[in-house]
């Protein structure tokens, strides 16, 4: 889920964010190093200060502590305190070898002869002294040596408030500087990346235009330099050209399909025309032979007229099917009569029985365009006729259901559709090589009308139902 969210962020923003995160990490690492160095510097300084203080006092105090001279110890501490007034040393206590207080800079806090343990127990040695805590004062202890012998110890409280404050101040500055530098780099990164990725953005825009269809990128918008991105854009344009060419080829193929289906009917249609012609010629002979007999002539002329009207209807249907300018005409019940006229001879030739059940009136049909619907029905009928055996059954049923769609059902009792044919008819997947384009054309035409196809088999019959919504294209 989160991954998806990240993927939805534009790449320019993502790169800027990545730069920002990297900068923050870098800033934190760098700050950490600076603070660590600063801390080490402070500790060294503090240790040096403490060492000087303690060593100076140790030299002076050693013999006095050895003799447990309370006054001299106090006097030394007191003068050291006055001398360092306002400096680091806050409090110092000196204890003897039994850790009893000999004297302190503040005797009220550490009375003479009291236990010095509370002062020494949480004090650090000189080497372990550090100002890295946040406490404004630290405590250091050191042994007092006379001739290599420990005679007591000294514990001092050292003011490190300024060091702590300095570190806090520097931490704040580092934080602010890092934040500033990071945001600057994030913005700079954003603009830089946005600029560098402009061709990609352009490509994305043209690949997924408002209408959802890809479009060519104008040559003027392609960067002049021959970078890989510019090449990418040109390649995209080339691909777009190829796609356009293919679409055009498909369109022309679909155009031809009409002639193909008509061509498939040509043989039976020729018979349809040829068969009556023989009878009509006989009728002409009859008229010529019995020209003096008006009743025979009258009867023959009627016969001749019926035959010619039929021929006129057939040729009219063929012309109708072949007309290129019917694109905008609405579907009418008459169109089904044309289809029946065109298809009947084909079925008859194979001895197939045709059930024709059109139960839709002009009101319902006129919402649909005539040309694609005729093409759909003719192709499916031809397909059914090819699938059904000699003397089989084919049926067409047209129904208007729920007043919002028209259902065309073509049924046959053939072997059923092959997997390949079903793929052609039901899916948009690329067409496998070989085989005709008739079923794929049906699929595309139905899709274009916003309809869908239902395929059912049962009781030895294959049924294809095309459901076309009304009012989609009228």
């Amino acid at each position, binding site marked *: 889920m989160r991954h998806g969210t990240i993927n939805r962020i534009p790449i320019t923003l993502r790169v800027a964010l990545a730069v920002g995160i990297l900068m923050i990490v870098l800033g934190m690492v760098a700050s950490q190093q600076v603070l660590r160095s600063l801390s080490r510097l402070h500790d060294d300084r503090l240790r040096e200060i403490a060492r000087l203080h303690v060593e100076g006092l140790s030299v002076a105090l050693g013999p006095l502590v050895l003799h447990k001279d*309370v*006054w001299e110890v*106090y*006097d030394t501490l*007191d003068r050291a305190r006055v001398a360092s007034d306002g400096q680091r040393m806050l409090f110092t206590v000196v204890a003897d070898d039994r850790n009893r207080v000999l*004297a302190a800079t*503040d*005797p*009220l806090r550490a009375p*003479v*002869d009291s236990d010095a343990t509370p002062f020494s127990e949480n004090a650090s040695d000189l080497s372990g002294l550090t100002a890295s805590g946040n406490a404004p004062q630290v405590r250091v202890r050191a042994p007092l040596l006379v001739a290599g012998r420990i005679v007591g110890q000294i514990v001092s409280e050292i003011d490190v408030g300024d060091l702590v404050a300095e570190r806090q101040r520097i931490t704040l500055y580092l934080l602010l500087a890092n934040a500033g530098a990071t945001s600057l780099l994030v913005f700079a990164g954003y603009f830089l990346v946005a600029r560098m990725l402009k061709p990609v953005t352009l490509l994305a825009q043209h690949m997924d235009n408002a209408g959802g269809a890809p479009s060519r990128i104008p040559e003027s918008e392609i960067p002049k330099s021959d970078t890989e991105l510019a090449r990418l854009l040109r390649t995209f344009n080339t691909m777009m050209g190829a796609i356009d060419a293919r679409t055009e080829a498909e369109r022309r193929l679909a155009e031809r399909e009409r002639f193909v289906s008509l061509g498939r009917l040509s043989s039976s249609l020729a018979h349809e025309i040829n068969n009556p012609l023989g009878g009509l010629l006989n009728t002409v002979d009859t008229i010529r032979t019995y020209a003096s007999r008006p009743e025979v002539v009258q009867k023959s002329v009627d016969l001749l007229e019926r035959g010619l009207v039929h021929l006129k209807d057939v040729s009219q249907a063929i012309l109708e099917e072949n007309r290129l300018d019917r694109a905008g005409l609405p579907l009418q019940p008459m169109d089904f009569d044309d289809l029946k006229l065109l298809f009947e001879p084909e079925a008859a030739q194979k001895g197939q029985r045709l059930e024709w059940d059109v139960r839709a009136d002009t009101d319902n049909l006129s919402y649909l365009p005539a040309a694609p619907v005729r093409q759909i029905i003719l192709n499916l009928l031809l397909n059914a006729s090819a699938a059904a055996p000699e003397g089989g059954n084919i049926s067409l049923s047209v129904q208007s259901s729920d007043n919002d769609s028209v259902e065309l059902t073509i049924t046959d009792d053939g072997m059923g559709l092959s997997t390949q044919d079903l793929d052609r008819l039901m899916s948009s997947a690329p067409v496998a090589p070989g085989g005709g384009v008739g079923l794929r054309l049906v699929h595309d035409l139905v899709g274009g009308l916003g309809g869908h196809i239902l395929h059912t088999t049962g009781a030895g019959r294959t049924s294809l139902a095309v459901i076309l919504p009304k009012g989609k294209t009228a």
Partner: protein
Amino acid sequence: MKRRELIAAIAASTVLSSPSVLRAEQLFRLALTPVFLDNDAVVIARLRDALSEGMGRDIDLVQRRTYQEITGALLDGSVDAAWVCGYPFLQHRAQLNLLGVPVWRGQPRYQSYLIASVADMAASLEDLRGGMHAFSDPDSNSGFLVTASDLARMGETPDTYFARTIFTWGHRNVVRAVAGGLVRSGSVDGYVWETLAEVEPDLVARTRIVAKSEWLGFPPFAARTDRMADADVSSLQNALLSMDQTDAGRAALDLLFLDEIAEPDIRLFDGIASRMSVLEQAG
């Protein structure tokens, strides 16, 4: 001593033609007890200027850490004269003679003060039992003898009466020890305390007087009895007694908060003598 003789011998052998230079090498040496002024270079300089002028020759002012060292130096001749405490003077009464006694606030006497921290509620020595106590010097009258003899009258000694006693080797240090809280109470020279109250009011303000002793003889100037006839010693005595009559002398006395140096009277020290006898009887 030997070193001085050696230096003198060398000087004599090399600069024989100039006796005045030789005299200049042998400075007159006056020792000072560690009273309040022991750390004030200006006071020392003014006093030396005044006495040098009064004697008509350069003198050297010698300071030591303890009273005992001063007394010892005076007795063994290392110094020609000394400003001592009445207590060691009486201890060596047989060998020493008075040259003059300073007059402070109109009389040649002073008191010993028993002091405590300003916040301490003690009303007398009795209330200070079991605390820590600071003495100035075991040879000091005001800084030891007075309190020790008071305790002797009570049948006590400082070590039994107080939890711990310390010697600070100076009256000003007693005030510091009490003011800083190192000890609960201290025995101090009243003259030093009063003078410090003028000079270092912040320090003294942190102490209060628990008790004052009777008036006792002010620390006198003294010299060895066998040297009293020396011209140098007489010259010093004259310079001391006439200090209030010269500008330099007045300047020094003002800094010391003293009126003048008066003719000595041994009866001034009867009070100290009686306290000494109390301590001796107790001991």
